[in-house]
């Protein structure tokens, strides 16, 4: 396993033909869950900053949604072909495309420090455009049918009113999601609370 694999994996994305069909927009919250249940961050890195597989953070600035979808539907080895239908792929594309706020940087962007936490992490959310009036973060973990929640956290604005911060904790390891609520709107942030110490 080495870095050259990442380059091979990215190559076909840059060589796709034009004239792809119109692409239906997906649901980023559903995409966040699919990203977890399919283990995408294992190869593409925490916060999708790249590892064995290429960096996907900001991918929507390099490829169209249809091109990203095609790279998932027709992957290049060693990336496997996942059991996702077209609607689910659209959800994943919507999620990946929202990581850095999406095209034009219109949406909020969440980051975690450390990116691969074991018990707690500092959640920072940047809101472009209008600064929100209140922000909460609710970590939860899906356990096949049921879900478990950790303490709901109220985020505080930093010296920059567009940047809010709070400390979230995870009562145990596994695949969590953080539901960030701001002025009645939602942002889903998946986080795999991971094992190595």
């Amino acid at each position, binding site marked *: 396993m080495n870095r050259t694999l990442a380059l091979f994996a990215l190559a076909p994305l840059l060589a796709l033909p034009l004239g792809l069909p119109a692409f239906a927009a997906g649901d980023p919250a559903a995409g966040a869950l699919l990203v977890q*249940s399919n283990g995408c*961050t294992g190869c593409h890195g925490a916060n999708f900053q790249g590892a064995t597989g290429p960096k996907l953070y900001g991918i929507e600035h390099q490829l169209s949604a249809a091109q990203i979808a095609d790279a998932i539907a027709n992957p290049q*080895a060693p*990336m*496997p072909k*996942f*059991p996702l239908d077209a609607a689910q792929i659209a959800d994943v594309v919507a999620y990946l495309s929202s990581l850095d706020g999406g095209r034009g940087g219109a949406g909020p962007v969440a980051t975690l420090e450390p990116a691969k936490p074991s*018990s707690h992490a500092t959640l920072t959310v940047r809101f472009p455009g209008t600064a929100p009036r209140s922000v909460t973060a609710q970590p939860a973990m899906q*356990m*096949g049918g049921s879900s478990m929640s950790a303490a709901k956290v109220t985020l505080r604005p930093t010296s920059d009113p567009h940047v809010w911060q709070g400390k979230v904790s995870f009562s145990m390891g596994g695949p969590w999601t953080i539901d960030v609520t701001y002025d009645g709107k939602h942002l889903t942030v998946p986080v795999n609370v991971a094992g190595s110490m």
Partner: protein
Amino acid sequence: MRRSDFMRVAAAGISTVTLMPRGVRAAAGDTVEYTLTAAPLRFRPAAGVESKSLAYNGLLPGPVLRVRHGQRVRIHYRNRTGEPTTVHWHGMILPNAMDGAAGITQPAVPDGGSFLYEFTPGPPGTRWYHDHYNNDATPRGLFGMFVVEDPVDEPADAEFAIVLHDVPGADSMPAAMNGTSGAPMVDPLGSPEMRQMRAGDRMGDEVGYVAHCINGATYPSVAPLAVKTGQRVRLRVLNANQTQTKYLRLAGYRLRVTHADGNPLARPLEVDALRIGVGERYDAWFEVREPGAWLLQSLSSDPLAFEQAAVVHTEGLAHATPEASSQSLDGVDYFTYEKAAGVTHAPFDEPAAQVRRHFVLAGGAYGSARWTMNGKTWPDTEKIHVSRDDTVLVRFTNKTDMDHPMHLHGHTFEIVEIDGRALRRPLAKDIALVRAGGGTLTWRFRANSPPGRWLLHCHNEIHMMDGMMTEVVYNRSS
């Protein structure tokens, strides 16, 4: 065949995954000689991961040892690890002095020392071998598969050894022994392990693993399984992870399970995925329907889940994009003892037995270094005294929040009860998971093994080292 040839072939078995081909085995009736040398290994299973591991003959996992049933082995064990070790032949019924339980059946082999293990391996089936000094040398790398061929087995067109193991983080085992590891559960979404968790649970006993291997490598470096269309393929699967239950799935295929812990099932069972407790083995078959490439995956919620995967491919498709499964168990039909053996709905009536023992498994609170059997830890646990040909019933009730893979040395037992219900068909095993949160499970076995002291313990390395162990002793006065 000369010994050196034999060892080379056996050692090659694991690196190419394929088990030893026909024609290179020693003839029936021969004595097969092996040399196993245990020594430190700087193990680099994944980018950026280097672990101070141990290995047999420089291989991690150790070489696949393979004999025909009836052949005798003379295994020259040499310990060069820098610490005391032994070798236990898991699943074998053999003279007690050959069982390899340090301090019970033999003194530990000191660093620089040697020991000759000599026995006739059996019963036939997928067995394994590993260290049995009471420390963590097994999870650090001292394990391997041992196949005793069964002359009545249906023939396979291709056969592969699949050994699952994970590399523990440097300080993770001691922290887990103290019950303060903080390492997370990484069982797949939808698994019974995940469902057992409760809000507010503190994770003290999980071991944190830094790499996740099949046959000692991580995806995509795991040696692929090259198959041909139309072939009937047999996988011999061992979970050598010493703390975690594994789920194994082959994308696009169902698996036909024929053997549990090397012992034939009364009726083969077809499933989407295997559920493999610590130390368990399953023989699983599939028939290659068409050209393609598929992932054989161990399912997990760990961010590094995809490391534990191997490509199965037909000719010319070694570099094709493999089909994958979701890492979730939701909606997946996985192997259970109940499905394999069938359960009755009538309450369980204990069958006749000369010896009965009931153990309540407890302990393991956060920050605790005690895992108990009837409130006691090894060596103060109650022993099971038997005399030859006794029928012995051992019932477990698990009051902890983790499953316990309970193992008996030197015997094959039959599971006769799970959670208060009798089983319809015999299920012969040497290790069985007792369900967390009040689960019960009963073994029945005949005390007809060679006399001696046979350990009975939880095979979760942390729980065993923290006291969840007793023994069956052949000395009952009638």
